[in-house]
Every structure is written in structure tokens, then in C-alpha cells.
């Protein structure tokens, strides 16, 4: 097959290595996203042949998503929105001195999820795209609701506070232009707020700044952030076996990532959080999530890399991108004269096949490069003292927030939300639910208002939300998800009836 031969050309292979490295770095840098990485590559790949361009673009997409885990683990800042949930268990693990282990877990998970997504892209793209089409506005609304009920499980503390955080996040997301109607809302007269509160500055602010402030408090302790203890090769094998043992977790997260990736309008940022929650729900020791357990990292990183393959399904079969980086790839495809869409799989199947194979190779490739890079980063970060690390992190956050929209206001917002996030954290409001609200708010609102508009022909427009069977599936899932903590408590109380423990004092 001509396509395969093209992949195993040394020149392309070397380019893929280079691109993988760039992708990892961009993904790791808080504020630089996978979308930017893909966009960056477009002019560079323009003069190349279509095959090369496609393969390289796919490579940077996959590696950037993986790279986001590095800063999530080392700096408690998601390098891309797809790695938010990786912070929850990655950073605590790193603080314990197990940074290397966390990175290895993230690496294996990313590769697993990535391969999973690509395989499904190869084999089942067309039937899966049919399912994706069944999702209309009502389904998107209920999907967002399902996502929001995740908060119930995410909240390790007070559930009410978790939901309040989510509501706050949603309200903040309404600032700016309304997604459906287009009117300007809640901008308080500040013209730069017309565009709303951008997600990335908010992410960086909520996750990174409180961590930095904690560092400031700890400046007198000679805490070097991470200690690498074990011998390299042994750790590698041990962790590999450890991760591979958890096939159920891996598969669950992969399916979630694949599925959410397939839906245009929901991408990696949603997938990693939903996968995390689902893992927590299915776990026998849910209270351990958030303390630094491998399952948390596995869930998040497997899902977000499965999104890559998933998001390419609607792109290649329907011409509709399943995620923002996929949208950029769409532009890249068009520029090379490849028309993504219904005709693609039938007409241009050779190019598509080569592309998918290239993506497969790229996913495997990022393992050695990623581990090497991350190992270097971990050693570097652990050797720096706080007085250098803290200012440098601020430096990165400024660059990151600014490069989103070239808007200095975004950086101010980032710092302000950072301070706010710190205060809220001390009061018991975790950043996870708030960012979840920020992400899902627009999806929920768009789905709701669009549904109501479409349902205008029904006797009562709200009826459309309950009309379709697919909506009901999601509604039932949402209710289950919402009341799961309650079920679990009742269930576990029944099981351990004999033990009447006094009120726990922590």
C-alpha cells in the first residue's frame, strides 16, 4: 500500500519527532493550547505534500493534548483545558515526591487513549458519525446537565458549595455576547468584556495562582517541589504494569473520550472531567480521588487523548470538526484541496488511510519523547527553589494568558480570578466545579435556547426537551449521577450497619 510506505520514510519520521516535541512543549505551557499548536503548524506544512501536512498536523494535535499533563502534574496548572482533571490527582502525587510516577501514568494513559481513538476512527468512523448526528440541541443541553451533575461527585467537601461553585462558573460564562441571541450581557460597561471571560485565563487563574500563593507561604521551607526517588527503568516497568492492570478504567475513559470527542461542540475539556467523575463513581474507594491516586490520572489522560481520534470522526465523515483543534485541521485540509465530508472516505480514502496510520505512529512516538522531556522537566522543576520557581510560574501565566487573544485584560482577569480563586478555595469552594461551570455554561445555554426556539411549533416549547428517546437516556444518566453520592451512602450504611461511629473529627 502506497500510503504505508510514505510513513516509513526517514525524513517524515524526523519531522514527526520534531513536531511531537513542539507539540508537547506547547501543550505543557499553560495558556498555549492544542488549538494554537495546530494553527501554528499550518503555514509550516502548507508547502509540504498533503500526506506530510496531514500527518504532522495530527501529530502535533495528539502530542499537545498529552503535553498538557506535564504542567498539570508539576505545577497544578492544566497545560490545556483537556488536562484539568489531571491536576486533581497528578499534583498531589507530585507533591508527595512521586512526580516521575505521575508523569509515567499520564504517558501510558495518553498513548492508550490515543490509540483507542485512532483505531475507532479507522474502523468505525461512519457508523459512529451517524450516532453523532442524532445529537440535537436538546441532547446537547442534557449532556451539559449531565456534565454539571458531575460536580456532585467532584466535590470532596460540601456538595452545596460545589454546586454553588458550578453556578458561579455558569454565571460568569454568561458575561459577554449571548451565544444564541447575540446581545451583550453583564459587561458593566467595560468594552473588553464584550468577548466574555476567556476560559484559559480563568483556568490559569483558578488553578495556578492559588498554588503559587501557597508556594509563597512555604517559601521558608526548603521544599524542593518533587523528589525523584526510584531508579528509572524499574519505575518505568512497574508503572507500566500498574497502569495496564486497570483495563476497565482505561477502557471506560477511552469510550468517554471517544464519544464526547465525536460530538461537535463538546471537546477534550469536557471529556477529561466527565471521565474523572465516572471513574470516581465506579471506584471502590471514591474518597481517595483527589489525594493522588493513579486512577484519577488514568481517567483524565486516557479520555483526553481518545478525544483526538473521536473529534476527527465527524471531521472526516461529515466535514464538521468535533473539537477546536479539529476545526483548525479542517482549514488545513481545505487548503490542501481535501474536502472533508461525506465524499472523503469514499473518494479520497488513500489519503485518509495514510493519515490515520500516521496518527497511530505519532501516538506511539510521543511516548519516548514525552517521557524524556517530562523527565527533564521534572528534574529541572525539582531543582529550583521556590524563590525562582514562583516568579517564573507567574511569568508563564502572563505569557499564556496574553497569547490567547492578545488582550492585556485577559491577563488582569487571570490574576484577579486567581486571587478570587485563592480566597474561594480557603472558604471551601474548589476550582474544579467553577471551571466546569465555565465550560459547560455556554453548551447548556446554547442547547436550551436553541431547543426552545425549535420547539416553538409544539404546544409548549419546553416539551421538546423531553421529546426524544436519546434525551431521556441522558436525563436518566443525569439523575443517577446527581443522586449517586446519596445512593452510595445509603448503600454503604446498610453494609456496615454494625458500626455506629461517633461524629468524626478530622
Amino acid at each position, binding site marked *: 500500500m502506497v500510503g504505508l510506505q510514505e510513513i516509513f520514510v526517514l525524513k517524515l519520521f524526523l519531522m514527526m519527532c520534531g513536531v511531537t516535541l513542539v507539540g508537547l512543549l506547547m501543550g505543557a505551557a499553560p495558556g498555549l493550547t492544542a488549538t494554537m499548536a495546530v494553527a501554528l503548524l499550518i503555514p509550516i506544512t502548507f508547502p509540504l505534500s498533503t500526506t506530510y501536512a496531514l500527518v504532522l498536523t495530527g501529530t502535533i494535535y495528539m502530542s499537545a493534548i498529552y503535553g498538557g499533563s506535564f504542567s498539570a502534574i508539576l505545577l497544578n496548572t492544566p497545560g490545556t483545558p483537556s488536562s484539568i482533571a489531571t491536576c486533581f490527582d497528578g499534583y498531589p502525587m507530585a507533591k508527595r515526591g512521586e512526580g516521575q510516577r505521575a508523569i509515567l501514568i499520564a504517558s501510558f494513559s495518553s498513548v492508550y487513549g490515543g490509540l483507542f481513538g485512532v483505531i475507532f476512527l479507522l474502523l468505525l468512523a461512519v457508523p459512529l458519525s451517524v450516532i453523532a448526528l442524532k445529537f*440535537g440541541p436538546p441532547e446537547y443541553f442534557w449532556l451539559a446537565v449531565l456534565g454539571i451533575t458531575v460536580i456532585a461527585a467532584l466535590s470532596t467537601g460540601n456538595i452545596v458549595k460545589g454546586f454553588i461553585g458550578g453556578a458561579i462558573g455558569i454565571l460568569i460564562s454568561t458575561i*459577554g455576547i449571548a451565544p444564541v441571541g447575540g446581545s*451583550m450581557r453583564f459587561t458593566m460597561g467595560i468594552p473588553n468584556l464584550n468577548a466574555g471571560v476567556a476560559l484559559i485565563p480563568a483556568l490559569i487563574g483558578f488553578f495556578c495562582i492559588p498554588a503559587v500563593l501557597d508556594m509563597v507561604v512555604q517559601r521558608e521551607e526548603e521544599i524542593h517541589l518533587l523528589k525523584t526517588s526510584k531508579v528509572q527503568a524499574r519505575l518505568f516497568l512497574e508503572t507500566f504494569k500498574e497502569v495496564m492492570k486497570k483495563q476497565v478504567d482505561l477502557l471506560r475513559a477511552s469510550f468517554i473520550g471517544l464519544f464526547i470527542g465525536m460530538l461537535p461542540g463538546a471537546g477534550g475539556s469536557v471529556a477529561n472531567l466527565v471521565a474523572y467523575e465516572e471513574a470516581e463513581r465506579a471506584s471502590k474507594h471514591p474518597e481517595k480521588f483527589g489525594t493522588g491516586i493513579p486512577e484519577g490520572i488514568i481517567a483524565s489522560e486516557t479520555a483526553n487523548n481518545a478525544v483526538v481520534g473521536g473529534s476527527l470522526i465527524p471531521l472526516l465523515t461529515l466535514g464538521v470538526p468535533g473539537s477546536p483543534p479539529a476545526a483548525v485541521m479542517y482549514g488545513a485540509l481545505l487548503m490542501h484541496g481535501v474536502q472533508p465530508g461525506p465524499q472523503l472516505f469514499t473518494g479520497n480514502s488513500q489519503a485518509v488511510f495514510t493519515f490515520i496510520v500516521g496518527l497511530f505512529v505519532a501516538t506511539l512516538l510521543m511516548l519516548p519523547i514525552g517521557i524524556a522531556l517530562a523527565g527533564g522537566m521534572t528534574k529541572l522543576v525539582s531543582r529550583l527553589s521556590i524563590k525562582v520557581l514562583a516568579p517564573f510560574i507567574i511569568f508563564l501565566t502572563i505569557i499564556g494568558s496574553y497569547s490567547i487573544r492578545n488582550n492585556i485584560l485577559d491577563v488582569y482577569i487571570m490574576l484577579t480570578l486567581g486571587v478570587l480563586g485563592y480566597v474561594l478555595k480557603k472558604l471551601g469552594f474548589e476550582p474544579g466545579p467553577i471551571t466546569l461551570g465555565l465550560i459547560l455554561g455556554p453548551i447548556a445555554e446554547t442547547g436550551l435556547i*436553541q431547543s426552545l426556539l*425549535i420547539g416553538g411549533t409544539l404546544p409548549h416549547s419546553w416539551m421538546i426537551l423531553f421529546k426524544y428517546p436519546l434525551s431521556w437516556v441522558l436525563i436518566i444518566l443525569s439523575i443517577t449521577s446527581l443522586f449517586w453520592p446519596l445512593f452510595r451512602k445509603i448503600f454503604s450504611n446498610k453494609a456496615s450497619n454494625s458500626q455506629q461511629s461517633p461524629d468524626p473529627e478530622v
Partner: protein
Amino acid sequence: MERFNKRILSLILVLVVLSLSLTSCTKKEAVYPSTPITYVLCFDPGGESDITARFQQPVLTKLLSVPIAISYITGGGGGTGWSQLTTTTPDGYTIFGTNLPHIIVQPLTGNAGYKTEQIDNIYMFESTPCILVVGQNSPIRTFDDFLKYAKAHPGMSVGGSGEPSSNSLALARLAQLSNLKLTYVSFTGSGTAITALLGGHVDALMTYTSTFIQYKDKWLPLAVATEGRLGILPDVPTFKELGYDLVEKAYRGVAVPPGTPENIRKVLEQAFEKVNQDPEVIKEMENLGFIMENYNEAQSKALVDQLTPYYTQLLETTKKP
């Protein structure tokens, strides 16, 4: 010892600052352009504006002999970028992609952060007319069927990209002219609007010809909003010939901040004029359903002046409570 250190330190800082300020003096010389030009797009990568710019980029780079760097300032339906345009240094090294009718209607519907007059359009290079389509399996087969269906189902859903946008205004005008109750459902970007029609979640779509071309095997075109029939779609009737005075196109162009010197504007105008005549560019654009337009600076201004009263009136008369 402490104080001594601090003094040396401040001396060093001063030296650093001085040396850096010297290096930044080497910026812009007389001949324009001499350093890279930033081409700012106000919409997300992968969209129509992005694709257009990417096609233009290599030709522009050759013509102007400097690299053209594409960057994005997204948000507010383009408004964030355009409001930043008004405060950008008018030295010709940052140009912005613009869209009609957006830059006319956005200031009219609220505080967009800029005024239409502040946007100095150097060139309008392409347009995508609006086209009304339905799915292949729809009971509606012709525009006449559409009218009948709309009468039987008041409030039928017609999707489109953005609001206010060319799509939404076209539908508003159609509703006005035909006295029908049509519900516009706005989708962000063309992507989700496409799946909405493919999945049968909306009854019809008021979209752009560039979108339709990609799905012409799956969709049925009912009418197109141009003056005369299009070469690429000879079998599609225009709204005009069907008796509805609806002409609606989304134009794309490029603009500079207010106050840009004349010589710079001329250089850019001529560059874009040449780009628009490049046969490669023309071929790529027309293949994707874009229509080449050629409005130079003066003509662009005239176009804006001509369209503004139309949109002002349309918005007034279709204002909802």
C-alpha cells in the same frame, strides 16, 4: 555589604534597561513594509476568514516581500478584534480581516466597542451569498413548498450561523417580505448548524454558498440571495426571480486602523488587488463556493455607505420586544 549590593544591582538594572531601549530603536525604517505584517483574523481558525487568509498569505508574502503572520483575536462575533483595531497603532504593520454586514450591524445593536466609521476597509475581496436549503429527505422540494410549509407550521425553525449575521438578517428580511413566522435558530459557527440540518433537528438552513457546496449531495437548495443566478449553481433560482427582493451576501475584506498614512494604505490596496487577481487564489476560492469581489478602498466605503441604511431599517422594523 547589603547596601553595596543593592547599589550595584540598581546600576546593573539601569544598564540593562538602557541597552534594551537602544535595541528597540531599530524598528521601522522609511520604506514600507520592512518588517513582518500581522494579519489579524477576528474569527476562530478553520473558518471562512481563516481559509481565505491562508490562501492569500503566500501571494501577499511574495508581493510585499515581508512575512505575513496570521494571528487571531476572537470573541464577540468578531467584535473583540474590531474594537482592538480602533486602538492599534496605524503604522500598517497590523491589518485586520473584516466582515460585512457584521461591522455595520454590530455597532447598531449595542455597544460593540467600535463604530462602523472607524473601520477603514482597504479592500473587499470575496463574498458568500446566503442560500436557503433543506435536507434531501425533507418534504419541501421547492421554494413554493417552503412557503406552504411555513404557512402550515408557523414558527418553523431555520438554522443559521450567528446572530446578528448575514444569515439571520436574510431570514428576517424573508420573513418580513413574505409575512411568515420563521424562527431563526442561531448556531455558533457553521459546524453545528450543519449537523443540525444533517440530523434533521431544524427544518431548513439559511447558510452560505460556500457551506452548501460541500454538502450539495445531501442538501436541496431552494433559492439563493443574489442579483442573478450564480455560475456555480445555475439551477438554483434567486429570491428575486421568485418575487422576493432579497439580496444578502457576507463580504470579507481587510482594514487598517484609523489614521493610517495614505502611502501605506495605497501599498496595501494594490497588494490585495493583485492577490485577488492571482489565478491560483481565484481557483481555490471559487472551488469552495466563494465569489470573488473587487472593491478597492473607495468602493468599499461606498459599499458600506450603501448598505448601512438598509440594515438600519431592517433592524428597526424587525426588532423584537
